[in-house]
């Protein structure tokens, strides 16, 4: 597939390519609205915690929406705007491409 420029490594789960192993860095601090706060809290509660391994296992079509994400041992379906709240870094330990 298309090679990723290393300088522009994805920083949010929404940009993580299919199948690439990564780790959660954190959930973006919630905005002002109640919905945003609830979403951030729920993402934390279901396990998007710092250091957890995370991987995109499927993407909908078209527009790669929604996405299915395996985090820790659990799989969740998310929308891209939800995934954008999750900050990630590529998992260097698993980065054999």
């Amino acid at each position, binding site marked *: 597939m298309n090679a990723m420029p290393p300088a522009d490594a994805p920083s949010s789960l929404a940009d993580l390519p299919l199948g690439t192993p990564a780790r959660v860095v954190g959930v973006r601090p919630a905005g002002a609205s109640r919905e945003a706060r609830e979403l951030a*809290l729920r993402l934390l509660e279901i396990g998007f915690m710092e250091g957890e391994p995370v991987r995109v296992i499927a*993407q*909908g079509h078209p*527009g790669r929406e*929604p996405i299915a994400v395996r985090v820790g041992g*659990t799989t969740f379906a998310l*929308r891209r705007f939800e995934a954008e709240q999750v900050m990630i870094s590529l998992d260097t330990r698993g980065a054999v491409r």
Partner: protein
Amino acid sequence: MSNAIAMRVALLGNPNCGKTALFNLLTGSRQKVANFAGVTVERKEGQLRMPDGRSVTVLDLPGAYSLNPTSADETITRDVVLGTLAGEAVPDLVVCVTDATNLNLNLRMVLEVRRFGVPMVLALNMADVARRRGITIDTPALARELGVPVVETVAVHRGGADALIAQLAHAAPSPRSAVPPEWHVPDAADVATTYREVRRILGASVRQPTVDTRIDDALDRVLLHPLWGTLILAGTLFLIFQAVFSWAGPPMDAIKSLVGAVGELLKETMADGMLRSLIVDGIVAGVGSVLVFLPQILILFLFLLFLEDSGYLPRAAFLLDRVMGTVGLSGRSFIPLLSSFACAVPGIMATRTISNARDRLTTIMIVPLMTCSARLPVYALVIGAFVPKRVVGGLFNLQGLVLFVLYLAGIAGAMAVAYIMQRAGGRATQHPLLMELPSYRWPNLRNLAYGLWERARIFLARVGTIILALMIVLWFLSTFPAPPTGATGPAIQYSYAGVLGHALEYVFAPIGFNWQISIALVPGLAAREVAIGALGTVYALSSVDNELAAQLSPMLANDWPLATAFSLLAWYVFAPQCISTLAITRRETNSWFYPLAMAGYLFALAYLAAFVTYRVTLLFTGIG
């Protein structure tokens, strides 16, 4: 132990942790399904017979990820656990059911609950699967770290809850502090602290190899694939509808002939008269014509339960999320809509899992447009009478094709209504999907059996109560008053039902309905499938010939023009749902506006569709 005080236990756990399977194992068939007071969250309670003869009341709480609720279900769960729900006894003990293969996620809520000093026991469910996956749990260490008793359970095996039952035998009902604990919304720091605590406890008590998800990965690569996954989903749905029609044939015939035999037997043994007419024409024929559909309903539910238990249903919702998105809904609406092909009532109840209030409302409003199984008898009768058995395109059965078109018409109508409703409410804000796709597993036979039994019971109860009562009322209306002496037409013409039918004919004549259909539509409002029985009764009582079910179809073929038949089909695609649907809508929305609006728009849509169908068919057949 004192056996005077009955103990109350509540099962708490994440969705997909096998909590309901454990509940079934503990309580067997001694279950009672109702609603929590004042709200429509389903409340499942059962009795556990202890080895020492005591009885323990077990409450199955709705699954939750957190005590901090994001849905009506989770709110109830929190309030019951904290003992703050009005009208609900405070449980003496909370059994925290966890998926032993996923303690990382499951243990978080356990710690949340522990903080409030709720007396509890931790059940490590699916302990067998965990062992097979090489996860070793040091149970004593875990109990020490948590400060609560820990037992292993295997909800899908007989005897798999013995350790839990033994533990419950030790636990005496302990009085809780009278003041309910104070609840406050946690913040991100609280969640992070709890998470670190989970990590620490797991580090001290559990050794787990890196999670092996190879099987799930392989399945998901295909089943969640935009192309292959969608094709498999379409194939699955097609198979379900095929099975509903083809597998149900033999048992339906058996029920039909049994009903016929009972009717014949009664006719021979009873003296001719009013009572015989009531029992044979009213009750046996009417109730029998509805009872026939039990096999189809059970087959449909068997598939739905299988898909649900195996973990596939949320994946179907994932695949269809984009399609639902075109009308402003999310994939979450798919599951309630699919259930509605069986019956709108469970469909509407299933909308509770949709956390977005507006999506939920729209879904409730379009649920009646999904062709429920109660409409099948009407379709089957009319299609059987008017559409020739012919193969088209060398492959498709013409009757089946017409039926398929009727289903599609309902779906298309639902999409259009959803689109308009979601547009009318202004531009939708982005709303979350956030749905767990549970690990695949083989459905457990016992759970399937319980689910089916529950469905059968509900259906039979309905036949025995509402439908039976309606058939009796209808028989009276169609039999009295007796025709005046010297009357020439059939007796029913002069009865209340006849008069009512003739009055309604003014409303329905423009769409081609005669007075017999007009009468049948009235009880059909209470329960759709009754319309068939009603037509049967009306035609049986209006003719000399008393052979009912078998004769109805050719009788209609002679009596109705084709345009009337098609018009009736179009009417039934959209017509207002049965009273139960409107009642459940009233309860779920807690307002009279929505059920009334639902009945109103469906009536308008049905009338319009039937009118257009009638006129167009007349154009093609009537004059030509």
